[in-house]
């Protein structure tokens, strides 16, 4: 398997009036060709900021303070953090080599242009072809994502389409340039279950055809289980556990992962009381010292977890965890 993207010790901080928020604080992972990496975590864990850092579309108040984002482009390797976020090289990569789909597709299409115009424009921006060819490509892509009457959808405006349809258009647009990496930031969260199932089914199908590596961000353990090959679990700006999906669900190691899996109500498993994770997510301006999960952890070791930060240990093949229970001193 060839690496396409590697994030090393990424730190993205926000300077806000209330203080510095270390939204992403030392995140490292790699993404291989053709795999789906699921990134799971609660709101505020830094999963979206990680994606925005890779795309270099961070809000003004945010800054990448440390780390590298290596992207294998054809033969050469580029460090995306070194590029000018509005420079030509980054603009060429963004949208073509690394594409992104968002939670709210309605917000990504301008209401004054038709869906077709916007798809064609995106294609022409990166590809040297005529308008007719671009239109044909757009049409082909809409067929690929199973949109009924693709011809008529091309000439419609975003507000005339449902959320599910728009998300399909978004996927079609993102895949039309055959990107090496596709980042999906909670693309099904705003959709109904039956539509979500359709999208997941569609992406699983397309995945077989396109070799794009996918980084799928979600808070939903169910979606993660259904779509990813490998999973990274994030908590308060850090990856606490990475593992192949079956490993993670069969043998979760980090206390947070375990608690998370225990706390979700499941179909076909009825029990009156859920095992809840105690406490609340700490204030982002005032992160706990030591392991960030220690104040909610069941296996908290006094004098260790609240004083030092554990390092990442490889427990099994490709199964890494950041917890003192498995070494990491």
């Amino acid at each position, binding site marked *: 398997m060839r690496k396409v993207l590697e994030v090393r010790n990424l730190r993205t901080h926000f300077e806000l009036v209330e203080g510095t928020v270390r939204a992403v604080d030392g995140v490292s992972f790699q993404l291989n060709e053709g795999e789906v990496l699921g990134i799971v975590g609660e709101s505020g864990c830094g999963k979206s900021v990680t994606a925005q850092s890779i795309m270099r579309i961070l809000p003004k108040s945010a800054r990448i303070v440390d780390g590298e984002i290596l992207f294998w482009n054809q033969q050469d390797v580029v460090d995306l953090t070194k590029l000018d976020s509005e420079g030509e090289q980054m603009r060429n990569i963004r949208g073509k080599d690394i594409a992104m789909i968002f939670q709210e597709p309605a917000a990504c299409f301008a209401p004054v242009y038709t869906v077709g115009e916007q798809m064609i424009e995106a294609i022409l921006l990166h590809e040297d072809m005529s308008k007719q060819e671009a239109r044909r490509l757009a049409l082909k892509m809409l067929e690929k994502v199973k949109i009924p009457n693709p011809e008529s959808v091309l000439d419609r405006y975003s507000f005339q389409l449902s959320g599910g349809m728009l998300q399909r258009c978004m996927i079609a647009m993102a895949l039309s340039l055959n990107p090496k990496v596709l980042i999906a930031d909670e693309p099904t969260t705003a959709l109904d279950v039956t539509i979500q199932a359709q999208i997941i089914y569609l992406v699983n199908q397309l995945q077989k055809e396109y070799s794009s590596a996918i980084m799928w961000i979600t808070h*939903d353990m*169910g979606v993660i289980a259904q779509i990813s090959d490998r999973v990274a679990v994030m908590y308060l700006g850090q990856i606490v556990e990475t593992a192949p999906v079956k490993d993670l669900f069969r043998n979760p190691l980090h206390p947070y992962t375990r608690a998370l899996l225990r*706390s979700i*109500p*499941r*179909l076909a498993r*009825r029990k009156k009381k859920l095992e*809840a994770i105690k406490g609340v*997510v700490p204030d982002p301006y005032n992160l706990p010292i030591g392991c960030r999960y220690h104040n909610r952890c069941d296996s908290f070791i006094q004098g260790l977890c609240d004083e030092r930060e554990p390092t990442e240990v490889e427990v099994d093949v490709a199964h890494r965890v950041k917890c003192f229970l498995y070494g990491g001193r």
Partner: protein
Amino acid sequence: MATGHKLLEVRNLKKYFPIEKGFFKRVVAYVKAVDGISFDLFEGETLALVGESGCGKTTTARCILRAIDPTEGQILLNIDGRMVDVAKLSRKELKPLRRYMQLIFQNPYTSLNPRLKVKEIVGEPLFVNKIAKGKELEEKVAELLEAVGLRPEYMVRYPHAFSGGQRQRIVIARALALRPRLVICDEPVAALDVSIRAQILNLLMELQEKFKLTYIFISHDLSVVQHVSDRVAVMYLGRIVELASTEELFDSPKHPYTESLLLSVPKPDPEAVEEFRPIEGEVPSPVNPPSGCHFHPRCQYAEEVCRTTVPEFRDVGLLENPHYVACHFAERLSLKGVRQL
């Protein structure tokens, strides 16, 4: 379980929202948000209303609470053995009945007035109904906050001091202030983080026992519904298509829509990645719903009769375990539940 007597009887409830056009606000069409639904609610049980967005579950809740006025139908509330039709009451007559029914909102960020202290928010129902004031009010608020797992000292803070989960606890405390019999929970955990959801669900179940509450639990999340409810009503485009006990409905659904809903829920188990084909198409517009059975354009079992005739909402279950369904072929189809996967 549903051993108690009837607390609520909903009969043929309808809510149509007019669509107005032009200078004179001429009504050109109606959004049939709720289109003739009927169900009973028994004391002490949790009845879940599930369905996708636009199916009318929230509108149903708001009608029962009379936050909006229903177009047609009866909402009979049992008040000390007397069935009172809430739908027919004037606003004035309604006021003393408000204390019997309360609502827990979906979004804890918009349902608390940011300009009031927790004390005023939780105490408002007690104050406006002249149940308590001054020192007594504070004591009652403290009691309520303790019941939902918050420190009573927090009552002097403003809502912005609290996280989503804590805010939802405040919302619950306010809903319980008047000791209601019926609490409608409108997606109470949908806006919360995964690790907080379990806490709130546990709290709701705990309070149900402690205060002898009856819940109508509205959710689109079937795993949550399955966990908390005794009976489930599945709604599609303003109608209830299936209503049965939770076990029955999840084990052996009788309506094709219920089946596809159950199959659509992504299971948190990578071993169970099954190659099913999700149902195609999307929920049609409630302005102009399909003829006959609303589900027929998406139903793989649909036949001619589904296009022409509205299926009757009928009991196909056993005597002690009724199972209502609105499908022409309910008896003939053998559908997949979640146990059989």
